């Protein structure tokens, strides 16, 4: 039987809440009220539980998430779902800098805008952003997929490795070694799947794909201007 456990961060210390979420074999539904911008909410969860956070969170919400489905009904600060391994994190609001930083897996959905460095150093996570993303997004993005329904800021995909980026709107500028790429059938299929997983129904034909030109994969004197 799945239970619903409710916490109020105005009266319960965060440590108690995170500790409860870390109990071995934890399942079921959890609701966290009044985060009021607290940092490190629901970090290090490693269980197929569902956590709903009602309010705005500070830094690193859902950090290093494994398996859990975490919903934030508010805005998220720096590093939401940083280093996530699996599971889902959904922000029904905006996300600040470094959303999904270095994450290895799972799905991060941001309803609104994400700020600078969205998907920085991503290592396999899927990120879908409903609005715009800020500058230096997908910096050193190694693996995974980033979908942006709005516009992207300056230096998108600077020093990108093998991650794939799909943008519907305008890109202010591309970073070093990041180039426009053809959308082949497999890319349309991949994009459609990601949009559906995030709850959007856009036409994939509206999107442009970006990825690595792979010119910086070996240090070469001719590329010295790029460094």
């Amino acid at each position, binding site marked *: 039987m799945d239970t619903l456990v409710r916490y109020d961060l105005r009266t319960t210390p*965060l440590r108690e809440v995170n500790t409860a979420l870390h109990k071995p074999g934890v399942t079921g539904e959890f609701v966290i009220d009044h985060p009021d911008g607290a940092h490190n909410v629901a970090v290090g969860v490693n269980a197929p539980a569902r956590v709903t956070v009602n309010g705005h969170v500070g*830094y690193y919400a859902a950090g*290093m998430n494994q398996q859990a489905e975490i919903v934030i009904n508010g805005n998220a600060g720096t*590093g939401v779902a940083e*280093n996530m391994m699996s599971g889902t994190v959904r922000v029904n609001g905006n996300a600040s*800098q470094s959303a999904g930083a*270095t994450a290895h897996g799972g799905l991060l959905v941001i309803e609104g805008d994400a700020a600078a460095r969205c998907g920085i150093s991503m290592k396999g996570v899927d990120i879908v952003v409903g609005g715009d993303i800020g500058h230096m997004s997908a910096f050193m993005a190694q693996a995974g997929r980033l979908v942006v329904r709005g516009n992207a800021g300056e230096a998108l995909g600077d020093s990108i*490795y093998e991650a794939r980026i799909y943008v519907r709107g305008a890109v202010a500028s591309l970073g070093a070694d990041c180039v426009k790429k053809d959308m082949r059938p497999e890319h349309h299929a991949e994009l459609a799947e990601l949009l559906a997983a995030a709850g959007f129904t856009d036409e994939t034909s509206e999107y442009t794909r970006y990825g690595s030109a792979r010119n910086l*994969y070996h240090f070469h004197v001719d590329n010295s201007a790029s460094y």
Partner: protein
Amino acid sequence: MTASDDRARRGLRESATFDRPTIAAIQRAAETGIYDIRGWGAKRPLPHFDDLLFLGASMSRYPLEGYRERCGTDVVLGDRHAKHPLHLDIPVTIAGMSFGALSGPAKEALGRGASEAGTSTTTGDGGMTPEERGQSKNLVYQYLPSRYGMNPDDLRKADAIEIVLGQGAKPGGGGMLLGQKISPRVAGMRTLPEGIDQRSACRHPDWTGPDDLTIKINELREITDWEKPIYVKVGATRTYYDVKLAVHAGADVVVVDGMQGGTAATQDVFIEHVGIPTLAAIPQAVQALQELDVHRKVQLIVSGGIRNGADVAKALALGADAVAIGTAALIALGDNHPRYEAEYEKLGSAAGFYDDFQDGRDPAGISTQDPELAARFDPIEGGRRLANYLRVLTMEAQTIARACGKAHVTHLEPEDLVAVTIEAAAMARVPLAGTEWIPGRGPGAGL
């Protein structure tokens, strides 16, 4: 007559500014168009522990006998907040070195040797390997800008977490691993394509500055339920301020790595010209801790050119709680051993000079990913050698501490030391031998 005698006789004089290594470096740059990359730490002569001497026993300071008159060597690291601080038998730890930079057998050997000696090893920029976790009784897990291989399962398996801001060889530089060492296994661990030259971030992706570091330290504590000590490691630069800020941000242990500290690969100019000597960093770190009234409560680990028990004793006397060894540990394992002389020559180097770790062709099988070369290295034998070396370091430090009348090696103090050069006296803040003079000190002087 030697070749140099002959040159001298003929009136040939080498320029001190454009000496032969400098000429070779300029010519290499002109040929290749790319900076020189190498391993190891700063090779040039610097004020170092050799310039300090212990005062030893005297009419008023009585030495302890060996064996029964105990001189303790144990150290506890990280007891400020963590549920499970590290209890080490000796004040010498193994510094962070990556799997990728080093071979799997080499990491295994480090684990074996450290565990036998009752101390800790540290992962590096590439993540935690099963070999190291399996062999190392106390494993410190590094948290670096690249976050290669970082994951919460390994975080929970670690005994301590070390947040790396920088290292002495390249304060401000990120990791570097060239294609020849990005083997299938390394590539898999780092989520990189095989065989490419790794580009690495030099800053953390989701925090900059001590205000954000405070939040990050709390995040790591929350994820691991406050069980493990959190270390903060800095390359020695503005050490006094860095240590204060690290303490304010919540560090349980601070690790300061001087410019003599090694790396597996970075630009030669970075190694030789950025960062300060270990000797100049230690008193800054200790002053910072003392001013915040946390000396010995937030522990200090010092690294960068620790070679023998005298270095260990001197670092402790200046106020460190423990030291870390990197280059020395590899040498103990067999790096630069004369038995490989012929192979070093084939690589254009020589035993005692070999620092091309970045090439991954190490004849000793330590800093390579080549399976054939790595197979030459026996991790069990290597572990034994490291344990021997760690025992010698400890016994040497104890010998010195006993001679100074100390019942524990961390009871050594700056007043047990004098310097033989003015630079060392100023940097280490101990008097020039035979005088009361500490250059640079006095009302209003110093920091």
